[in-house]
């Protein structure tokens, strides 16, 4: 029985790829956790859609200032060098290619790089937020997601079945089982859990996993 990565371990793994000095935007939810695992000695700068660059960690409970929040409406703090700006300037940063990395959640990712992460279908109240903007503009668009749905269905597919967030936009996927790049319309396996065979991983992946070199070992510390 394979021990999947925990969400914290997935976030840790994604954090290892963020360079010193990188400008990063984290989607709401699991992607936000990546900020916690910034490797020592590296200083990435965090961007939030609602107009802050270079914010710090969450305040202590009771210390919140509700004019100092992130895109998920959670309280954050100032750091030396923080800057405030309005929403059009904020999305100029996004759309204009100034972010190095955006890390987002996903319902489905296709081998083409298509992403579906905003709508599970026509029922209920639709909501999109900044997801469709974030998938365009950041130099790298990474997804962090469980490898399969709660029902065990593949989330990595030849083609998305849910409404798209963006076309051909995802460049890397961090799952609880593997790290996969998207290149030339293919999933390229970079790392997998050592206890998991390639065949078993392929069996729960909805499109072919390509290999372009040795597959690395996906490991993360206990967190």
């Amino acid at each position: 029985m394979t021990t999947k990565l925990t969400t914290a371990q997935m976030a840790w793994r994604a954090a290892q790829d963020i360079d010193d000095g990188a400008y990063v935007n984290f989607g709401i939810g699991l992607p936000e956790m990546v900020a916690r695992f910034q490797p020592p000695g590296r200083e990435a700068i965090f961007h939030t859609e609602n107009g802050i660059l270079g914010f710090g960690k969450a305040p202590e409970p009771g210390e919140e200032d509700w004019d100092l929040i992130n895109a998920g409406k959670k309280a954050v703090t100032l750091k030396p060098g923080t800057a405030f700006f309005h929403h059009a300037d904020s999305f100029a940063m996004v759309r204009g290619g100034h972010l190095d990395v955006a890390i987002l959640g996903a319902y489905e990712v296709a081998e083409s790089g298509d992403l579906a992460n905003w709508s599970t279908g026509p029922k209920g109240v639709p909501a999109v937020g900044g997801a469709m903007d974030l998938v365009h503009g950041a130099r790298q668009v990474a997804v962090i997601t469980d490898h399969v749905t709660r029902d065990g269905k593949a989330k990595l597919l030849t083609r998305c079945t849910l409404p798209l967030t963006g076309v051909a936009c995802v460049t890397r996927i961090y799952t609880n089982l593997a790290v996969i790049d998207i290149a030339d319309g293919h999933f390229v396996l970079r790392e997998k859990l050592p206890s998991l065979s390639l065949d078993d991983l392929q069996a729960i992946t909805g499109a072919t996993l390509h290999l372009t070199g040795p597959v690395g070992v996906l490991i993360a510390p206990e967190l």
Partner: protein
Amino acid sequence: MDKTVATLAEAVAGIKDGAVVMIGGFGGSGAPVELIHALIDRFLATGHPGGLTVVNNNAGNGHVGLAALIEHGMVGKLICSFPRSADPVVFTETYLAGKIKLDLVPQGTLAERIRAGGAGIPAFYTPTGFGTDLAKGKPVEVFDGRPYVQERWLKADVALIKAEVGDRLGNLTYRMAARNFNPLMCMAAAHTIVQVSRIVPPGGIDPEQVITPGIFVQTVVQVPHPAQEEDLNRAKAVYPEINP
């Protein structure tokens, strides 16, 4: 020239039935709660204004501010990016009952459309939304080999804005991330109404630090200790209070 008025009631007196009203804020941060409540007061007293089209990033939270505006049936249509919140019950029920129309716009496109409205740019192209349901029916053009969606400007009759410091000329500063959509909406509305925590004489704001120059502002009203929507919701507030 003096753009200040003495009361919230006076500030919102001119808003007409069916008006397109931009409301600043991102969630509760930067939301002009007192201006919205003054508009509700007017509606409760006079039955007007109704049938509003509201432009906001969200759709209200709890039973105060924008949520209360919707709960009182004053909003016929909402243009927003993310109609969800910690307590979205008012919008959700109104929407699922078919009593409010929703025009969902990606957040960056919403911001840019508002800026375009203020800047006299009737249309622009963006990569955002290409190939998705939200771009269906919109013109697409390829530039340098990449497809882009054409989006139109967004203008309003009125903007309701929360700022921090203002002067009688309409110059404004904001408070931290409460800035968000507010400066853009100031630009895009024919009549911009601003609540500020503090009015200072002209020159009281360093000219380097003016975020919204007064040319974009028509009315300024002082609200010294504005409510934070998040605090109201944590206190389970409902507007207007039944037992005040």
